[in-house]
């Protein structure tokens, strides 16, 4: 995808897989209603990083951004409540690299992904499947479904927006096989 800059690729591959860690940490740093916003703000800082390829540990990098943002917010706040900080074991900003399991668990569970797909409205679901799973071109999908290309485009956009939203919120199971491992297994079999 030529429209992805190097920093976007880095962000998708190195930062997003740890989204569960970030969300858990955010829930400890700020009030529950502000957690998602803290994560998104930290993402926005991270994706603006000028030397992203020099960052040894992107996970620790984003965690540190989050912590500093939380400091700023708390210093501005009129009153800070500490209830959500009772469990502070997560304050180990973890400079060590996460183990392989942690990376796997950052991926959505396969079963959950299928569920998310099933929850899409019929037309966006059909378009997403044809485009990304069957690899059909938008103009061919338009012909197959008897729609205009721009309508296909709208359905694809709608489906992807719903999926992307749900993935930010989807709980990642602590146990179970991560999707990338399943995927590798299937690929090995089919090769």
């Amino acid at each position: 995808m030529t429209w992805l800059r190097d920093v976007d690729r880095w962000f998708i591959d190195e930062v997003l897989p740890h989204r569960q860690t970030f969300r858990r940490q955010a829930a400890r740093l700020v009030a529950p209603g502000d957690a998602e916003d803290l994560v998104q703000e930290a993402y926005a800082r991270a994706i603006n990083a000028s030397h992203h390829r020099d960052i040894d540990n992107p996970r620790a990098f984003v965690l540190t951004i989050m912590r500093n943002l939380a400091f700023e917010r708390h210093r501005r706040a009129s009153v800070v409540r500490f209830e959500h900080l009772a469990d502070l074991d997560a304050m180990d900003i973890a400079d060590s690299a996460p183990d392989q399991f942690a990376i796997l668990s950052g991926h959505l569970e396969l079963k959950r992904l299928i569920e998310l797909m099933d929850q899409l409205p019929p037309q966006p679901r059909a378009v997403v499947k044809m485009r990304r799973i069957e690899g059909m071109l938008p103009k061919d999908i338009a012909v197959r479904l008897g729609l205009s290309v721009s309508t296909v485009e709208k359905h694809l956009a709608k489906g992807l927006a719903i999926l992307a939203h749900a993935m930010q919120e989807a709980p990642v199971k602590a146990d179970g096989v991560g999707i990338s491992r399943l995927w590798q297994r299937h690929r090995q079999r089919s090769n």
Partner: protein
Amino acid sequence: MEEAAGWLAALDAGSAAPEAFAQWRAGDPRRAVAFAQVVDALEQVERLRAVHEREPAPPPRVERRLLLRAAALAGGASVAGAFIAVQANARESASTITGERRTIILDDGTRVHLNTATGISWRIDGTSRSVWLDEGEIRLEVKPRPPGSGAGHPLRLIVAGANIRLDAGIFNVRRQPESVGLLVLSGRAALDGRRMVDAGSLAQVIGKSVSVRPAETIAIARAQSWRNGQLVFEGESLDFVVAEFNRYLDHKIVIADPSLSRIRLGGRFTTTDPADLLTALQASFGIRSVRGDTGAITLTTA
């Protein structure tokens, strides 16, 4: 997210100019984030290709039922050596050192909880019962007198020259250098035989002047919490919070940077151990705590 998905679909269909997209994305890093999240969703969907041909047979459902162990409540306050006082004509006394709490049961059945650095004395005989609060803070659970033993005698509480009569009920009394605070949790009290203080009211005695007003919720919560070793705050300044903590600490906390005093915070600390507070201050404000040679803890920015 919707906007980002729109751009991705348009780029994918070739209907959007890459320059226009680049301009949109450059406008706000949050757009770049949303776009990356949408691309990530797209790539994850692609992984379904592997299992697309035949829908996978539902995996054998080995649903692990996680039995959540009932969280064992941290046991109540560990009361250091409650004892039964023996009856005597002379005044008896009991005290706690800094950080200590203890409960005393008087001969008439009245229960007295002593908070940190507190000293009381008392005398109980056939016709009267009196308690003196020499320093610190107590919670008094006054029992009615058993019938036939001089019924109707309230308990007399003497604090810094103030004479308070307590009917059966629960009272929190705190003596401070300049004032005495009496919070009536249940029952009724009479100050110097005149001023009545009803349940839910707080009386402040400063020298000869007395003010009685309804107690704030936080004052009641605080009075109910200390005997369980909990400190409750509701938007007080760090100055106040530190002062409250220091009552329990041999090695006091000192705020080195005056700008920190204005920070306001709330919360319930489950222990009088300052470690939680210090960790929370570090975590929420980046406030460092340094322990000096004398043991005192100094709070500084950076």
